[in-house]
C-alpha cells in the first residue's frame, strides 16, 4: 500500500509528512508497549508501518532505531509537539486516526496489509 492508500483506508490526518513518501508498505506491526515493538526488526527492502497508541517521543525513537518509516497513532490522542518535532528531525512520517487500534488494523488488513513476520535473529 502507498502512504496515501494507508491514509485513505483509516481516515488519517498527516501530522508530519517529511520522509519516504514513495514507499510501498505491505507489512505492519501494532503495539502499545515499545519493548514489544523493539522485538521486531524492519528489513531494508520491506518497510513496516507501526500502529500504536503511544504518543510520546519514545515512539519516534523506537521507529528510528528500527528503521520504521511510517507511524500511525490511533485513538485520536493529542500528540505532544515534541513528538512531531522529533519525527521531523528523523524523517519519520507521522499519521493520526481517531479510529481505535482494532478497527485500524482491520481496515488495513482488508486492503491487503499483512502482519510483520520478521523478528531479530
Amino acid at each position: 500500500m502507498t502512504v496515501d492508500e494507508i491514509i485513505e483506508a483509516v481516515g488519517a490526518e498527516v501530522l508530519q509528512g517529511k520522509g519516504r513518501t514513495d514507499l510501498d508498505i505491505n507489512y505492519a506491526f501494532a503495539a502499545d508497549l515499545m519493548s514489544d515493538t523493539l522485538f521486531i526488526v524492519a528489513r531494508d527492502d520491506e518497510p513496516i508501518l507501526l500502529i500504536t497508541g503511544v504518543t510520546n517521543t519514545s515512539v519516534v525513537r523506537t521507529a528510528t532505531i528500527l528503521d520504521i518509516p511510517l507511524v500511525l497513532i490511533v485513538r485520536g490522542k493529542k500528540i505532544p509537539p515534541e513528538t512531531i518535532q522529533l519525527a521531523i528531525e528523523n524523517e519519520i512520517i507521522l499519521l493520526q486516526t481517531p479510529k481505535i487500534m482494532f478497527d485500524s488494523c482491520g481496515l488495513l488488513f482488508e486492503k491487503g496489509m499483512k502482519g510483520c513476520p520478521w523478528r531479530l535473529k
Partner: protein
Amino acid sequence: MINKLFFPVITSDYPSIGSKALEVKKKLKDFFPKSDYLRRLGVCIFEAEANLVIHTNQGGSLEILVFKDRVRIIASDKGPGIKDLSKALTPGYSTAPESARQLGFGGGVGINNIKRFADYFFLTSSKQGTTLLFEVWNDDDKATN
C-alpha cells in the same frame, strides 16, 4: 578500540528514554554500515537505557566501547538492585511503576530482549547497584574471545 562514549542516565526521566540509543546508532553509522547490525545494537541499548530510567533510584550510566568487530555496553547504577535475578529474566515479569507502563514501557521484556539479541551477556546485582555488561558482535567479523 575505535571509540568510547559515555552517557549519564537520570532516574525517572521518561521523556529521554531512547535518546542515548538513538545518538549511539547515528554516531556508529559510519563504523557499522550494516543496518541489521545497527538495529540489533540500538534495541539493546534502548532497553538498557529504559531500565536505568525506570528502575534506579540515583540514575546510572551507559558506557559504550566500540571495537572493530563489536560494541561492548556497560550499564551500571548504584541501586536499589534487582531483588530476584531469575524473576527479572522471566519474560513478562516487571516491577515497573504504572507511570512507566502508561508511556509504553515496563512490559517485562527488556532484559530478555538484550539477552536474546546480545552475543555476550553478564548481569550482577546487589543492593549497592547493578551492572549489566553485554556485547553485540558484528556478524561479518565475530569476536573470538
